[in-house]
């Protein structure tokens, strides 16, 4: 079942629906055979981009290249990609077998060859025994497998997936996501995966792109996007953050750790903090400081945990089984969100409760700067 996978190049794609700008000058390169996610809130343009690649929408401007060749003039049926639809879009009048054989018939395969291929695909998506059921008799997960088998039937170079798991329940989503990843490993073709679920995107993608309001904000590996978001939107959309406007005061090179240490003034925290970055930041620049809640350490009582330690009271604890979330109101008046995983019950001492005094701290290397300028509120 090895396909080859195409490299896809999106160049300056712009698309408007009336006065609504769905995509605004989006450029993107996708390497052959990779699992690439388009992530963003609904209405951000990610699905429109997928539909442009599939051929269901025409861009106002720009190019879509498959391995260097433009596909914009080709109708959807001629493009070397197939799509898995959000609501499965199975043909209700055909059986599982009929659905999977549908594209093969068009391709002009002989009956014997076709049957063989359908059998192979049914085994591949583990639907053996459901061959003759109609889509109406299948569960959501089974429908999605049929949709995937049908899309893979003609061995496309690229598989487009439009929120394929969003119609399924949470538990099933998890297991199907793992299966999708395995399928990607087996067929080796390029996957373009549209989702609004950051967890899905972070866990399976080789690379991902973040969209908002028709613009591509950031593309990179999940690690890059999570650990160093380049825009305020990315920082707040992916994961949770404590994000505060700040002003850079000075930058210095730390020989020992091979990194830059920036000193920033954070008025909301009432402090001057140190944070590491890849390079120097010009003095006086306005930007944002962010620290992820799970990287903040929380200890009960007023304890001096070293420089950069904050003291405060727990405003609101939220217990969530394997972890707890605390909103800590610092003595300076800021609110810091803290996530604490419950690892070993006994070693952690007394539980932290509402109105308890606590101390929190984080390492300078765990914070990061979001280089987007803030403006004085008027």
């Amino acid at each position, binding site marked *: 079942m090895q396909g080859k996978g195409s490299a896809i190049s999106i160049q300056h794609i712009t698309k408007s629906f009336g006065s609504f700008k769905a995509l605004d000058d989006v450029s993107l390169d996708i390497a052959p055979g990779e699992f690439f996610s388009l992530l963003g809130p609904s209405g951000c343009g990610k699905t429109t981009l997928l539909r442009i690649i599939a051929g269901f929408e025409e861009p106002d401007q720009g190019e879509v290249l498959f391995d260097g060749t433009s596909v914009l003039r080709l109708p959807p049926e001629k493009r070397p990609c*197939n799509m898995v639809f959000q*609501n499965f*879009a199975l*043909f*209700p*009048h*055909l059986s599982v077998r009929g659905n999977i054989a*549908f594209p093969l018939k068009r*391709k002009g395969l002989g009956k014997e060859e076709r049957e063989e291929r359908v059998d192979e695909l049914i085994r591949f998506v583990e639907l053996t025994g459901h061959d003759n059921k109609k889509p*109406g008799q299948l569960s959501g997960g089974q429908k999605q497998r049929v949709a995937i088998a049908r899309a893979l039937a003609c061995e496309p170079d690229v598989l487009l997936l439009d929120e394929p798991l969003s119609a399924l329940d949470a538990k099933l989503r998890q297991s199907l996501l793992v299966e999708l990843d395995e399928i990607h490993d087996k067929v080796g073709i390029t996957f373009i995966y549209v989702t609004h679920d950051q967890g899905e995107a972070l866990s399976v993608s080789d690379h991902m792109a973040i969209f908002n309001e028709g613009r591509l904000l950031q593309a990179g590996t999940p690690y890059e996007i999570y650990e160093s978001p380049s825009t305020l939107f990315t920082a707040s959309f992916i994961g949770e953050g404590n994000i505060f406007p700040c002003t850079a005061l000075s930058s210095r090179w730390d020989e020992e750790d091979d990194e830059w240490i920036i000193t920033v003034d954070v008025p909301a925290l009432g402090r001057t903090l140190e944070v590491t970055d890849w390079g120097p930041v010009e003095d006086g620049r306005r930007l944002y400081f962010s620290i992820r809640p799970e990287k903040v350490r929380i200890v009960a009582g007023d304890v001096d945990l070293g420089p950069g330690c904050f003291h405060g009271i727990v405003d609101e604890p939220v217990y969530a089984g394997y972890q707890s979330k605390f909103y800590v109101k610092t003595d300076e008046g800021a609110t810091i969100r803290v996530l604490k995983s419950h690892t070993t019950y006994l070693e952690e001492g007394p539980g932290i409760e509402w109105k308890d005094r606590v101390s929190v701290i984080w390492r300078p290397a765990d914070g990061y700067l979001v280089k987007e300028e803030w403006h004085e509120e008027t």
Partner: protein
Amino acid sequence: MRKVHAPRFSQLCLFFVMLFLFMPLIVVAAYSFNSGHGMTWQGFSLQWYEELFTSSHDLWRAFWNSIIIALTSSLTATVIGSAAAIGLKWWSFKLSGYIKVATYLPMILPDVIIGISMLIFFSSINLPLGMFTIYAAHTTFNLPFTYLLVDSRLDEFDFSTIEAARDLGEDRKGAMLRVVVPSIMPGVLSGFLMAITMSIEDFVITFFVSGPGSATLPLYVYSSIRYGVSPVINALSLILILASMALAFIFRRFLKSFAASA
């Protein structure tokens, strides 16, 4: 106490409803085997069946007229109605709402009004009354039913399956033939059968637009009543009842093969 009596009461209701529904049919069926002419039972005989098949030339002519009109007008109404349903669902424009309402009009208007207006229309354009005018009239009053049944089927239709078909290698025409048409087929078939039934049983409208030599079965039966009801009609009725029951049964089996879809 009530709990005991209520089912008994509803059983009684059911019994009487069934009685009123089927008694006339049973009477007709029974008297088709009566050897006498009147409504007194004079012994079993098949003489009316003999007369039906040997010496009822005009009756058979009317019967075949009905069949021809029913088939042609239903076919036309099904094709136009399905196309209209698909078209109005695909392209909604300013007037599409009004067109939908207008399509239902023939269903709501009293038959007498439709009949008279058609008669006036046909004579104003000097169209001679006959088979063709009956065909045109039947097609018209059948349209709302075929349209309605296909339209409701289209309400359940998942339009993304068209894109799926395109994505999987079909062009526009292929997607229409291999995805849209099979999906709405149950609606198309029920519409067609409904139209046939409506056409065969129509009396009022046909009465206005028929001409010499184009009498359909209901018209023939009505005119023959003037000379007293012939038991030959009873014989024909039983045959028609059995035939439509058989058709309904076959159609049900046929529809069942679509039942698993959706």
